[in-house]
């Protein structure tokens, strides 16, 4: 009898305690993330000369020297890297899931390598290899390719390196997606209903992996837009290297560009998470 009486009294108390804990966690996390951001934004809108608030630094971003080129380059690299990563990981993932499950540990291990190798080691190797282009390999097709991959306008070599760097993230995202749906059963069901392998991939797997594919694309995008080490050492001008370059000359401008790019990244994240939501209603047609 006492148990029956005490339970309803106890439950809300536990509930309230849990609620309080989560509110505290939320506040701490919010302070941790928002205070530096707010400080950055405050720093960029201060008018040091006349006092008060100004949007001058934000409006001057597009006109800043080198910005347009660096942004165009970074976005091009990002798009190419995203396409490249998906082209490598999606077929590999499907092959491992559908036809070659025994290779899964190998693919998983390979996909983790870029996380284990520090970017600085990777870039040292890349630089040595690039040096072969105009040297030992001069005149050979591969040597020419190495040379042309270093076009400062659109350095394809960065795309290659970024594809390697992004593979672990893309693989994780796709792996989680493929585990969330019972891929094996869905494939069997589709095959049993008369689908060719093409239909299985096109009509069943890819639509159900949309969220995972978008996630992989987004992670790659974020990685490329923020990557400094490799672009910096290979002396290419991308958005991050440009930011570092101007931060000495114009602090407020550089911080306003960082803030703007942060907001841009958030926007992308929002788009991805909206696209990933399950449809709740759709015409039957």
């Amino acid at each position: 009898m006492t148990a029956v009486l005490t339970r309803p009294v106890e439950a809300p108390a536990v509930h309230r305690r849990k609620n309080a804990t989560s509110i505290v966690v939320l506040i701490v996390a919010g302070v941790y993330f928002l205070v530096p951001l707010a400080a950055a934004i405050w720093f960029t809108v201060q008018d040091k000369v006349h006092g008060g608030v100004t949007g001058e630094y934000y409006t001057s971003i597009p006109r800043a020297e080198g910005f347009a080129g660096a942004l165009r380059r970074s976005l091009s690299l990002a798009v190419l890297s995203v396409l490249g990563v998906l082209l490598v990981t999606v077929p590999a993932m499907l092959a491992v899931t559908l036809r070659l499950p025994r290779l899964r540990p190998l693919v998983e291990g390979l996909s983790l390598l870029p996380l284990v190798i520090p970017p600085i080691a990777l870039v040292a190797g890349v630089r040595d290899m690039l040096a072969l282009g105009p040297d030992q390999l001069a005149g050979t097709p591969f040597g020419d390719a190495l040379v042309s991959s270093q076009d400062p306008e659109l350095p394809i070599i960065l795309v290659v390196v970024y594809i390697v760097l992004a593979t672990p993230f893309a693989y994780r995202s796709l792996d989680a997606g493929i585990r969330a749906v019972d891929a094996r059963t869905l494939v069997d069901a589709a095959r049993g209903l008369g689908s060719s392998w093409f239909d299985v991939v096109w009509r069943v797997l890819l639509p159900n992996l949309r969220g995972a594919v978008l996630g992989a694309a987004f992670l790659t995008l974020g990685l490329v837009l923020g990557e400094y080490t490799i672009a910096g050492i290979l002396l290419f001008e991308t958005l991050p290297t440009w930011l570092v370059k101007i931060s000495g000359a114009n602090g407020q401008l550089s911080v306003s560009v960082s803030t703007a790019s942060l907001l841009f990244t958030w926007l992308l994240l929002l788009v991805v998470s909206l696209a990933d939501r399950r449809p709740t209603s759709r015409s039957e047609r």
Partner: protein
Amino acid sequence: MSALGVRMLGIRRSFGAVHALDGLDLVIEPGELVALLGPSGCGKTTALRVLAGFETADAGTVRVGDRDITGLAPNKRDMGMVFQAFSLFPNLTAADNVAFGLRVRGVDGAARRKRAADLLELVGLGQAGRRYPHQLSGGQQQRVALARALAIEPRVLLLDEPLSALDAQVRVQLRDEIRRIQQRLGITTLFVTHDQGEALSVADRVGVMRAGSLEQLADPDTLYHRPATPFVGEFVGTMNRLPGVLGADGMVRVLGADRRVAEGSDAAPGDVVVLVRPEAMTLTASDGGTALVVVRTFHGALTRLSVRLGDGDEALVDLPSPAAAGIRPGDTVTVGVGEGSVLVAAADAAAPALRPV
């Protein structure tokens, strides 16, 4: 389209050192529902997957009607399959799921929608066409899966434990509905299950599998009352294992009486295990009895008594409830084996390891 029969002959399939199918012969008559029943690992699911084309047999032939489909890819076999669970395409509505097979066959949109609506109506989900799988209950999802399998007018319907993930109540309801639809369409069906109640209640014939081959394939009544082997007898329904002595004359002495040995028995003269159904036992209250009633369970028309025999073994006895009315736990009784032949197994024969309830 008139129904076609299925003939699987001499099917072998090994996974490494494990022989999942070891010379399986299975014939399903046109329009018949055959259930495959057996402990886990007996090869029943592999048999179904070989028929569906998802597994390739190492040896043997599979025929549907007059056609040899042994080497045919699964998408060319025209079989409708219902899986255990989670087989609906999550990105498609119920109606689109049902219409999927028609879409890959190039059926035009209007005909597709009409057929999907008809089939959803058939499985009692006429209103749910626009819902997505995650908006449907487990039972509803399996109904949609059934409609989807039937939409392509399959030559054979394959059911791979379609009810095992459902609640008991939904399970019974859907089980009966599957049977009703199957009989109405007259479609040849293979139903794999580990639940003997399911198998016995819906199937025309039930095949009991053991270690990759069929132990017995018979109608439920025969399977229960005249099991071909001790394994089948013990796997289907409840069996008492009583000690007995087998004579050279084909009679076995059990609980003080001599009984004829049934066909299918498998033991040499000497000490044996006698298999007797609880309802084939006799029990009379007697002060001088050597057996003791331990538990009494009321099941409506029948009352089950758990009895400890003189030698310490326990036995179950089912009596018509009126006959058991006066008997209570703690009473001493005399227990015997009713008239009729009994199944006998070697004394060291193990009981089926996994007997589903």
